[in-house]
């Protein structure tokens, strides 16, 4: 299957760890993906709150290019990107008038039934659990991992068609494959505050704080995410939250690709785990310790 890769801005910038670790594990699994040539902004946050046509046209252009190049499936690791791409595909499919308008302005046809996948869908659906399981060289048994889904992966359910929007489990399944123990907690899909990180940091700290303290209470060693925005709120704001609420958290926040990479036995440095704000050293040591016990 010809797989297209839409990185989006985050994976090339603030969340470079996500891209590095993704490419690393794909390389390990011998899976080839190709970046969509001349891709543009997916329209997240800004476009879709300001201009509806633009919010469809931007992602539609990326899809149209992928279609022209004959791809059958697009991977958009960033939850916001996959959300925008899926939304655009959904609207184009269900609104012929809009479709005409958009394709006319793009001067490109778009008729594809291409599947658009977020990271989790890609790993479970395209790669497959068996394949991932066979890659696990260094099981993480003993490690307690909380999966945080946030909002964009599962909502709106009508469009995303992915997992149970109120109680998603896909990421927990992936965690279980690495041998680690998924931690059940109450705030898997609560809002992290998202883009308000810049405009209303207090709100974000309250919301993200709720999530992090709940994870801590349920005894997790670390958090995994599949969304750059979640990651930056949970990781970058963590110190401030600790100061504000005067309670230590110390929860490393990894991308799911990084966790998989660790279980595949890939060197943490190659996965860019040292690129995060909350150092994962202790967790890495624990992993080593657990491996040595065996």
């Amino acid at each position: 299957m010809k797989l297209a890769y839409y990185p989006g801005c985050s994976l090339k910038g603030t969340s470079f760890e996500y891209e590095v670790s993704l490419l690393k594990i794909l390389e390990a699994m011998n899976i080839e993906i190709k970046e969509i040539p001349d891709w543009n902004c997916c329209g997240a946050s800004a476009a879709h709150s300001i201009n509806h046509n633009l919010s469809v046209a931007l992602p539609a252009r990326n899809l149209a290019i992928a279609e022209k190049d004959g791809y059958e499936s697009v991977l958009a690791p960033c939850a916001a990107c996959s959300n925008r791409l899926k939304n655009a595909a959904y609207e184009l499919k269900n609104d012929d008038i809009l479709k005409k308008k958009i394709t006319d302005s793009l001067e490109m046809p778009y008729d594809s039934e291409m599947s658009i996948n977020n990271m989790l869908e890609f790993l479970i659906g395209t790669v497959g659990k068996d394949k991932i399981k066979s890659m696990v060289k260094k099981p993480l048994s003993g490690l307690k991992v909380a999966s945080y889904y946030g909002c964009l992966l599962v909502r709106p359910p009508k469009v995303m068609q992915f997992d149970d929007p109120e109680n998603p489990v896909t990421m927990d399944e992936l965690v279980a494959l690495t041998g680690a123990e998924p931690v059940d907690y109450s705030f898997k899909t609560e809002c992290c505050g998202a883009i308000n990180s810049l405009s209303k940091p207090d709100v974000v700290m309250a919301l993200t704080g709720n999530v992090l303290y709940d994870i801590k209470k349920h005894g997790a060693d670390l958090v995994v995410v599949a969304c750059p925005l979640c990651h930056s709120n949970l990781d970058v704001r963590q110190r401030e939250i600790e100061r504000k609420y005067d309670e230590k958290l110390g929860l490393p926040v990894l991308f799911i690709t990084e966790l998989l990479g660790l279980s595949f036995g890939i060197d943490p440095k190659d996965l860019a785990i040292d690129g995060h704000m909350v150092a994962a050293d202790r967790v890495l040591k624990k992993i080593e310790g657990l491996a040595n016990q065996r």
Partner: protein
Amino acid sequence: MSRIGVFVCWCGSNIAGTVDVEKVREEAAKIPGVVSALDYKYMCSDPGQNSLRNIIKEKNLTGIVLAACSPHMHENTFRKAAAKEGLNPYFVEIANIREQVSWVHEDKERATAKAVDLMKMMVEKVKRDRPIEDVRVPLNKKALVIGGGIAGIQAALDIANGGVEVILVEKEPSIGGRMIQLDETFPTLDCSSCIMTPKMVEANQHPNIKLYTYSEVEDISGYIGNFKVKIKKKARSVVEKDCTGCGECWNACPMHKNVKSEFNVNLSERTAIYVPFPQAVPLVPVLDRSVCLHFKKGGKCQKCYDACGPKCINFDLQDEIIEETVGAIVASTGYDLMDTSMYGEYGYGKYKDVISGLQFERLLSASGPTEGVIKRPSDGKTPQTIVFVQCVGSRDPEKGVPYCSKVCCMYTAKHAKLFAHKVHGSQSYVFYIDIRSTSKGYEEFVRGTMEQDGAIYLRGRVSKIYEDEGKLIVKGADTLSGNQVEIAADMVVLATGVIPKKGSDKLAQMLGISYDKYGFFTESHPKLRPAESSTAGIFLAGMAQGPRDIPESVVSGSAAASKILGLFSKNEYEVEGTIANVNEATCVACFYCQRVCAYNAISKKEIKDRSGKLIKVVANVNPGLCTGCGACVNACFSKSIDVKGFMDDQIYAEIKALAV
């Protein structure tokens, strides 16, 4: 040769004011076949009807056209008058020159022309009328009631008390339905089993009622007056007539763990051989073969058999098919509660102390798993704070159903009230969208729950429920104050929406009655024929028709019963004769007519010669089922089927009469 009489009514000035009635009469007189034309001030008055009757006699009329008001007004009046003079009542046709002419047009000349047209049409139609006899169908005066909940029991008792034999079929081991699962009932707080058990016993002992529990209707064919019913009596493994209901068998059963009690909505366990609840009617256990060790482990365990005094346990009993013929049927199959697992945010199934309303009923019930003491399923502690969430599934087109389940507002108020009565110093919160308390004493009841029993009502929805340090944290909105609220509760009760009983759509297909997109049976008319289904002879009762409370279910059961007693008060069922009729000589047996018939009224009929050799197969119309809609007529390629009173030649003649 036709001898038609045309009568033009003035209707005072109602018609004569806009239509030149004399002109209509003159035009009528010119039509070949019309032997008498007359106009009169009020044809429907006694003198009008008398002149009509006199002229029928005098001129020996073969058909009558009344140019008058709508046939929906006085067609019957004139048909009856004609019948008194020995004329077939279907030889009366009405030209509607009031509602369709004089009242809606102003130009007298043009209105008169239209009136003449309509009159001519009807003259041409009446010339081609054939005598039609109303059809009489013999009735087997026995009724079948499907479903032994309160509605079914009420229907069965009313019919039986009217002196008619009733067969009551119940799928579960005991009759009683949902109502017997309830604790106390709103708004009077009388205990459900106290008022229900006597009715159940009465139904069981009534000489006119034959009760089949643990049985299902397997097949139904036939039509009003003559339904052939096959009932599957599932193998109970207990010989009913010998069983004394002593209980030795279920006490001896080693399977007392792991099998959840359906009656207690999974809040307790039951044995493999069991009665669903102590007051079951009949008090005869059922052996659940899917979990019984005797059946699972090759016949080794027979502890119940050993314990049984009268030795009425028989592992070899088989399903039995019973055939009955009945004249009428009541479908009262009741309801189920919606599966709330799609509300992941409420954690039903994940958190033990998030329970459904029906489960709370069982916790309240003195005969329930906790003997009426409210205890948390998780740790057996008595909750001090309960949050009730209304409209879980109801009024939610996205995830649940768009309709209102009707009973939840009231039973939630009852739950909060009983909780306050049983646990002093406790606090309940109720999240609601609207409060619907519209029957007698209901509003006062809800207000009482708020004002005397201190329940706090919050208008808004719950967004999330999660566990935190042994408490259930309920997050929701209070839309009246505009605040978000968080309540730490010990227990959460979800008022789950009502849906039709599983399998009721299949039963509806078997019965040939219509049902809505949710699976509720639809009434023949939602207002004026609420007890009748779309098929003659099949009546509806209870929640199978849609959400309703106990009083309404009882009323609907009685309504169905009185309809059946009314039907059975005659020896024959009379149907209007305007039904479909097959020309057997030309029928080519393609049975397209059968496919379009919404009433299953068409069957295959074999025509045999004297020696019994099959000559041909033709379509056959069952007069008990046919309603005369005429869908079959248009489906017929060989023009072999027609509807009396609306024959093809009549309609073509009407069109021809309008030729310009």
